[in-house]
């Protein structure tokens, strides 16, 4: 059996869960076994139609101690639930949630653990995975003989569509006690509500050539016109123009959006490594010989402060048509 550990955002299912399901399906076909999904939480309310045709069984593992996520409680609950069940692999999103939960499961279940996998295959009982190393400068292929917890890179897999699964939702009381929850959450602060940049379809990113923090509002305007989010290079974050949470590259996040617009970013190797997964790249740069232009499908050259407003104007005109 292949298990997918799903991620919840309040009462909705995080998009990364559907990508993990897609990855799980690859393994379930390759290893000729079933596909189950498990959510962990308290008083879970999900829309059944979102999920019923995507897995054989959907377990809601619930306990009031799981009301706020901690890796220790989640790990203990899932580990006890799976201890007497067949599990060839557990797939989880490589989000902050999945990355914490994966080792907390792998250790007690005595499974291998591989994080941030960008591609998966299975044949003859062997699982083959690829993952980026050194910020994406190198791709490693690993073969795995045995059971493993695998976290999958955001946007590396498609979202699973409905298939001919005849899903069944089953609620289970998790077996947990206070000693399973040594970490207690005292306070939670939400920041601006911006989505994680690794989940964005379109990213408009700014670098050193944006000159100051005020000019980032121009990027926000372009991002809004395109229906995307703002990101930044390390230089812009180090200069204090943008928060570290939106930094792209080896020392920030590795992203794989449909469209990446690199504004006034020259393209250091660490930055380029972080955007290799992007489907399309547009660079806007004063220097046509900048490294970013070789990694772009389209490179607009000249003064970024003239090109970006012109582009915003044309996008708005095109959208109106």
């Amino acid at each position: 059996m292949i298990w997918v550990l799903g991620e919840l955002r309040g009462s909705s299912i995080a998009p990364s869960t559907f990508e993990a399901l897609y990855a799980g399906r690859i393994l379930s076909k390759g290893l000729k076994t079933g596909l189950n999904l498990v959510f962990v939480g308290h008083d879970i309310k999900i829309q059944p139609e979102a999920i019923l045709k995507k897995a054989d069984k959907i377990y809601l593992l619930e306990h009031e101690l799981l009301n706020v996520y901690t890796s220790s409680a989640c790990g203990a609950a899932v580990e006890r639930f799976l201890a007497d069940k067949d599990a060839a692999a557990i797939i989880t999103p490589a989000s902050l949630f999945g990355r914490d939960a994966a080792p907390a499961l792998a250790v007690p279940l005595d499974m291998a653990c591989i994080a941030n996998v960008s591609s998966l295959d299975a044949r003859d009982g062997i699982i083959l995975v690829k993952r980026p190393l050194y910020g994406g400068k190198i791709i490693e292929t690993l073969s795995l003989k045995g059971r493993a917890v695998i976290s999958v890179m955001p946007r590396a897999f498609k979202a699973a569509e409905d298939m001919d699964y005849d899903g069944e939702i089953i609620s289970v009381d998790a077996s947990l006690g206070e000693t399973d929850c040594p970490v207690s959450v005292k306070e939670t602060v939400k920041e601006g509500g911006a989505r994680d940049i690794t989940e964005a379809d379109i990213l408009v990113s700014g670098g050193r050539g944006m000159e100051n923090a005020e000019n980032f509002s121009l990027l926000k305007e372009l991002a809004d016109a395109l229906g995307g989010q703002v990101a930044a290079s390390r230089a812009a974050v180090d200069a204090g123009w943008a928060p570290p949470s939106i930094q792209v590259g080896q020392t920030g996040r590795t992203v794989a959006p449909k469209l990446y617009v690199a504004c006034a970013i020259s393209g250091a190797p660490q930055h380029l490594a972080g955007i290799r997964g992007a489907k399309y790249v547009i660079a806007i740069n004063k220097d046509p010989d900048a490294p970013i232009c070789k990694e772009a499908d389209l490179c607009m050259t000249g003064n970024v402060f003239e090109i970006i407003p012109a582009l915003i104007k044309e996008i708005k005109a095109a959208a109106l048509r």
Partner: protein
Amino acid sequence: MDIIVCIKRIPDTAAKVEIDAGGLEIKKDVPWVMNPYDEFAVEEALRIKEKFGGKVTLLHAGAEGGEEVLKKGLAMGADEAVYIKDRSLAALDSMAFAKVLSAVIKTKPFDVILCGRMGMDTASGLLGGALAALLKIPCVPAIKKLTIFPQKTALAAREIEGGMETVQCPLPALFTAHKGLNEPRYPSLSGIMRSKKQEIKYITPASLGIMPDVADLKRTALSYPTSSRKSAILKGDASAQAKEAIKFLRDEVKII
């Protein structure tokens, strides 16, 4: 407080990383540095020691070249450096490292264990969680602020999806350091001189009675990512370029 810090050695993130002739390893002649997140961990350990007294022990597991990063940590102010050195520790499987490191940690007293939130080589971020699970102690990942109380509890602020949370836990506990936790100090001249006299303790996994088991997980290839970008260059008038870009967004990206 007894504080243990696990440190890793990685190629400098600015370095060009290339695959060697055998195709299964990277060329070793790159500049190697202490994993940047581990520097935050070392700094935090030193600050805890400065406040409460105690001892900071550095642990490093690897096949070769670890002396340099351990010496750097000693020069920053750590008291002891332990190097678990073995050829089998060349692979990058965090779980195997966690098993070896936990075996050493179990032989030592500890209140706080610190490590970086991830190695910038694999970007796995598994080590801290795996170590904590093996040692059966609480794990608080990706912390940006840490306050230790004398009655052996801790309050930590950590990054979560779309925000921050503050958590409390008893010690002993493991924390993984995120950027923003502190500003790591540079080794002072006196620190560098002292570190030259400090000896690194070597341990082999065999002496701990463990065999790093990586047979299930095997690297079969390394490759370079392929790029099929067209690199079309536009020049001249901004609005003419913008019109060209719109065509691209409409016909190829298909978002307009």
